[in-house]
């Protein structure tokens, strides 16, 4: 037991589990300011251009909004799964997942931003079939005489759309705040039964999470082209979010460790296991994306293939090749050797790489909806802006409290965690 004593002393020393006061203050303010500035540039760039430019700006922004929404959402899923399976090894890491989960309001604000931006743009530009809508089914000129809209209208109404969005936001905010409160209250009072309560909540939360995530993906991405449909789409959004949130959290952990925090709490063993999870979900993402693409490609039914044909034309075809290679093959090769999965440098770089690929994946799904357009400088600005805001908010969140759940009943287990092989 002498090992554990030494571990616990070192692990829970205040300068190991806290960042210094005002740490990262200038960083998060800078990131936030630049990010918001880029968002402003996106809006201005959209408004000052023609309708197509506005549409490009809108779609680029929406790509980032889905990204910024998805990462806290995925983190909430991970927190609930960790509670559900009574995970012990991850007790010291869970706070970072919770920090990412805590950014839920940023994601929600980003999505509301999409709603607002569309509303602004369609008022600035003349109405008509080419009006800069994200969701074309909201455009009366676009759906006029469309038989598919006529068949789907009960789902594609504004009331249902915004009503469901409110419902998703309420469920996500409720779950994430409750989970956060259990965890931070335990820091204060040390009541181990908070863990049991969080676990009970997670049991109910996970089915809610599954359904809301799937329908959010339908509402916000799949109905961008309301002609198209895929039963897999919710699972695809979930898989992408898992990769995104794991890469984000792992990056935070790696950075904290390199700033001299989380000794013993985040060892090579934890790094190894987190890398395995990242690797696993990268493969899972590939499996889901491949299955979706492959089944549609093989069956070659016009109403389904149209969606992917658009994404295989022009500049998008480079992404059609680049995303599978960058999002699957490269990380698959680099994260496969065991020694590399235990190197903070390699893993950290892979996280950055995967976060970029994850954005490209969403970009490839969302942006080609602006038909007949190529890449535009607004794409870079529109996608990066909200992501920088998220990064700034994350820095602020991480610096604001203890870096581990201080009184988690399974802390001891996590401190002694090892991989036998």
């Amino acid at each position: 037991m002498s090992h554990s004593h030494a571990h616990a002393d070192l692990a829970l020393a205040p300068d190991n589990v806290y960042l210094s006061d005002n740490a990262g203050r200038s960083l998060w303010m800078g990131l936030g300011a630049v990010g918001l500035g880029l968002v402003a540039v996106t809006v201005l760039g959209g408004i000052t251009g023609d309708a197509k430019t506005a549409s490009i700006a809108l779609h680029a922004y929406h790509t980032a909004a889905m990204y910024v929404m998805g990462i806290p959402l995925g983190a909430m899923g991970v927190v609930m799964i960790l509670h559900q399976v009574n995970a012990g090894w991850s007790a010291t890491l869970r706070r970072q997942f919770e920090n990412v989960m805590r950014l839920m309001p940023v994601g929600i604000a980003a999505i509301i931003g999409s709603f607002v931006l569309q509303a602004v743009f369609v008022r600035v530009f003349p109405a008509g079939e080419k009006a800069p809508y994200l969701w074309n089914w909201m455009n009366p000129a676009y759906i006029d005489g469309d038989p598919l809209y006529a068949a789907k209208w009960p789902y594609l109404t504004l009331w249902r759309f915004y009503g469901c969005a409110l419902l998703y936001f309420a469920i996500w905010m409720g779950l994430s705040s409750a989970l956060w409160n259990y965890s931070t209250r335990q820091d204060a009072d040390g009541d181990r039964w908070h863990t049991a309560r969080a676990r009970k909540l997670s049991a109910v939360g996970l089915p809610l999470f599954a359904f809301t995530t799937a329908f959010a993906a339908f509402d916000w991405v799949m109905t961008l082209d309301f002609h198209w449909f895929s039963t897999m789409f919710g699972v695809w959004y979930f898989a992408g979010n898992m990769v995104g949130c794991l890469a984000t959290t792992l990056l935070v952990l790696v950075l904290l460790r390199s700033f001299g925090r989380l000794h013993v709490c985040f060892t090579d063993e934890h790094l190894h296991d987190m890398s395995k999870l990242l690797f696993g979900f990268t493969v899972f993402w590939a499996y889901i994306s491949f299955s979706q693409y492959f089944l549609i490609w093989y069956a070659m039914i016009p109403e389904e293939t149209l969606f992917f044909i658009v994404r295989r034309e022009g500049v998008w075809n480079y992404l059609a090749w680049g995303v599978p290679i960058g999002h699957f093959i490269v990380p698959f090769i680099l994260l496969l050797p065991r020694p590399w999965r235990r190197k903070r440098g390699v893993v950290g770089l892979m996280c950055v790489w995967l976060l970029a690929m994850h954005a490209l994946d969403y970009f490839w799904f969302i942006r080609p909806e602006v038909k007949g357009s190529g890449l535009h400088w607004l794409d870079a600005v529109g996608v990066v802006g909200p992501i920088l805001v998220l990064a700034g908010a994350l820095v602020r969140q991480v610096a604001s409290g203890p870096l581990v759940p201080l009184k988690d009943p399974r802390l001891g287990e996590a401190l002694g965690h090892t991989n036998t092989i």
Partner: protein
Amino acid sequence: MTVFQPDREFALGRARPRTPDAHDPSTVDGTLIDDPGVRAPLVLGNRDFRSVTATICGWIEDKTPKWWFPAFFIAANVAGLGTVMILYLIITGVGVWGLQIPVAWSWDITNFVWWVGIGHAGTLISAILCLFKQKWRTSINRFAEAMTIFAVICAGTFPGIHVGRVWMAWMLFPIPNYNWIWPNFRSPLLWDVFAVGTYFTISLLFWYMGMIPDLATMRDRATARIDEKVTFGPLWAPHPLPGFIKRLTITLPANRIAAYFYGILAMGWRMSSRHWWNYEKAYILLAGMSTPLVLSVHSVVSFDFAVSILPGWHTTIFPPYFVAGAIFSGFAMVLTLLIPARALYPGMKDFVTARTIENMCKIITVTGSMVGFAYMMEFFIAWYGANPNEKEAFLIRAFGPYWWAYWIMVTCNVVSPQVFWFKWARTSIPFIFLISIVVNIGMWFERYVILTTLSHDFLTSSWGYFSPTWVDIFTFVGSLGIFTTLFLLFMRFLPMLAISEVKNVMPQADPHHPMYHGHGHGNGHQNGGH
């Protein structure tokens, strides 16, 4: 920002798992403990390594249990019936089944998919749960893997015999022949051959490799008995044996046979640390290889349907939905077999604790709900996709001539596993047994429902209704017999629980454990031998 002082004593206190209160009735056998500060014990009954070996090996070495012979007799006869049905089919032709146009594919493929699905639990338990470090899996993984292999054997029978001209089945393999006819590599049925073939090979290797240390234990125990003298009188003699009856003192040939049988299978395993090192490395590698296979096999099986353009079959969620369903049915089958075994074999409850069973119930609820999620998505997109044929296919499934099959499926697969949200359901063994059978029925119907889509061809004039013939039914029943026979043989002759792995998760295996010091260092694996 409030700074809480980290509580050193608190963390240290939690570092030591506390002993659960075995007398608390709400924890059943002491393992169903909800306290987050306590880890439930994985092995009960204050066992040491020696008693673990003795108990598990005892199930093989002791006299054959009385129930085993009648069970084997029935199972073997049913298996024989199945074999006769297959022979009848081959001699007569596939016309003996109820297949016709439009339903030219029914029970044969339903049974295949059902069995392959069942065959997913073993590898999930031994590979994925191993990678997730779920220690409770050690007491059921051998059992589940054996089940997997036998289920895949049963599954493999059906595509083989359903091709019509069975003697041409070899053409599924890419073997060039004199006419230079190659298999159609674009056909998912061919991918099935590769996917299931790979899966079977890796599962068999994994199962066998994991068993080698235990087989060596069996070998050593049998070798120790080779020269053991046994004295007995004739079978008809009364007990105790009267003095005037001639006694016979011999060494039992069964011990010699067992020593060679297990000896050959153990492949020279000597429990050396180098052997263990290689073993652990191979174990984790095979676990890594098996993990994608768990997903790929049933994904490929789902491609059999999903790559087509048939309404009701072509839907993108099929691959993960099939995988979830497979794990669902596999866990149900493990429970169906495990619950009677747990009651029949003395001491098994110490390893397969109430918590093990509860965990499995929870996995059944999770995967059953995933399947329910997929059913819902299918229905939603069938409507949202606005393809009238697709919509029609789903409406006919639910309200057409096969409505009963559809609602059996929904009740068994989606509704019934929800009972495990309640603790009383997860702790009542007879009830769990009942649900496990219900789930198996439901999963069979799931595949049947998918196949019934064929009965509504595109022209109303071509609609039909499939009814199985007696050959269909008895072939399926026969496959159950083959499965049960193989499983009974496994229970009788091979170690049902992974002895060395169970020892690994016992507190004594931890070098910091007082009992470890008490017996001196290094006794962990030495004890494993005897």
